[in-house]
């Protein structure tokens, strides 16, 4: 019986060790290796077959050369900074778009709410790639948006939106909107309506009751939604490479191109390691927030 329990634990455990933790260890190792013109294009710094000698040689040769290279090369700095900027601003816009939707669903009659929620979730099930692709036809110079704006007469020349950062913002807001709406809706749904009535009885206007009671009490949903958008947006690859232009710098795209075009694996691995380090802070925030929410429930 104990053997059964052992096997039950061991199978998923070993699977995740072998296909999640070990690969990440290899990335770390290669990030600390030197670039070489060969296949695979790096000289392994750690040689297990040489036993203790190899491990000692590993620590002796351990260098942060690739990381130092990253700090010296302007491209990576700018890519990290512009990823952060794009992800932050896009998250903020998603909040501005998503909150009214979540609020609207929470205010709708209970009979309607499951359908409305279903309508928010449904796009999440359809292909991410196709949802991003759909915007190419809308945003291009001869696309629908420009045609519509020109036929109304708002603009006389087509706006260049595709292949700029604007298109990347639109793409992120569009694809990650469900992640923002759902946690905010969950927070609003839990909210005790009598608190708002009390605020209004005590002389608050509807607007100030919203601002002083509803919004602060939905804070945890807002935080959860923002992090659920920010975390994947930071490492995003598909949106900047399809909607962004050659000037759009995002770290996921740089990593992909570094790896496949330049084949400089040590530098690509170092880029990956720093991206993970960047993500740890928001992830810890997210977990704290979830834990606090559970404790309140």
């Amino acid at each position: 019986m104990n053997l059964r329990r052992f096997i039950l634990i061991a199978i998923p455990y070993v699977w995740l060790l072998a296909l999640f933790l070990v690969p990440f260890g290899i990335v770390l190792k290669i990030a600390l290796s030197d670039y070489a013109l060969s296949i695979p294009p790096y000289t392994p710094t750690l040689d297990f077959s040489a036993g203790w000698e190899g491990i000692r040689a590993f620590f002796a040769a351990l260098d942060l050369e690739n990381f130092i290279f990253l700090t010296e090369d302007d491209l990576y700095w700018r890519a990290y900074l512009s990823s952060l900027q794009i992800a932050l601003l896009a998250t903020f816009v998603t909040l501005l778009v998503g909150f009214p939707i979540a609020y609207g669903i929470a205010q709708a009659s209970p009979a309607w709410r499951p359908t409305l929620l279903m309508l928010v979730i449904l796009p999440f099930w359809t292909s991410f790639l196709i949802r991003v692709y759909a915007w190419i036809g809308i945003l291009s110079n001869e696309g629908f948006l420009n045609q519509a704006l020109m036929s109304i007469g708002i603009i006389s020349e087509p706006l260049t939106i595709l292949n700029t950062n604007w298109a990347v913002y639109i793409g992120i807001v569009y694809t990650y909107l469900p992640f923002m709406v759902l946690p905010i809706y969950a927070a609003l749904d839990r909210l005790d309506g009598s608190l708002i009535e009390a605020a209004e009885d005590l002389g608050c206007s509807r607007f100030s009751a919203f601002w002083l009671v509803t919004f602060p009490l939905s804070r945890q949903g807002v935080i959860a939604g923002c992090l659920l958008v920010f975390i994947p947006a930071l490492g995003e690859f598909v949106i900047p490479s399809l909607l962004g232009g050659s000037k759009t710098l995002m770290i996921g795209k740089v990593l992909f191109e570094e790896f496949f075009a330049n084949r400089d694996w040590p530098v690509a691995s170092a880029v990956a390691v720093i991206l993970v380090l960047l993500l740890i802070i928001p992830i810890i925030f997210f977990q704290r927030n979830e834990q606090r929410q559970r404790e309140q429930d």
Partner: protein
Amino acid sequence: MNRRFSLFNATSLTLGFAFLYLPMVILIIFSFNASKLVAVWGGFSTRWYGELIQNEAFLDAAWVTLRVALLSSTFAAVLGTMAAYVMVRGGRFFGRTLFSGMIYAPLVMPEVITGLSLLLLFIAIGLDRGIMTIVLAHTTFSMCYVSVVVSSRLVTFDRSLEEAALDLGCTPFDAFRSVTLPNIAPAVISGWLLAFTLSLDDLVIASFTAGPSSTTLPIKIFSSVRLGVSPEINALSTLMIGVVTIGVVVASLVSKRAIARQQKDEQEARRT
């Protein structure tokens, strides 16, 4: 909350859903466009669907994708259910914190990093890249989603039922099969569906782990979309949106019915 559905609520919902659905509606309408020019309406036609089903590269890629998705979602459902059971019912064991960390980390790991690290692993152990490596990669990240879905069901499921089965002489395996599994089955099925769609949809991890002979549909779409909008891709997208929409609607109706039946059974059991 107090429910006073105002004009503001109605406007924000209308605009919000228009934003969510208009791009896809436009895509679907223009997949029936006779003209090759993407933004000019040239009359109704199903020409691009005809060309699509004669395009062997797309058909091959679709077949690869389907096989990968079926295999990886099935593996992920089994492994994810095991992992969820270990997390919720496993008690204490060595390295439990590491285990739960490894369940949650892949959910937030950027796809480029997951793909990169798996590719480096496959090269390090000399595994040729092909369908099998994509299946391994997809199973790994989707089993984590499955285990989150299944463990949320396991947490709410009354443990005393399992204990009763054990007291009545079931072996732990029998108790799992005849008591626990039927109860968590809806969660396992929705986990499987989630894993299936994640695998169908994945571009980045598949790009890293696919070999030259195992191009999946997203890889194929991505490489042709980079050159711009094409009516064939519009047709393909419409088909994919259609299949997913029908699948999700049917699945939600079935699960709604299953929940209703379960509630009815429980009520009747209480009455007798």
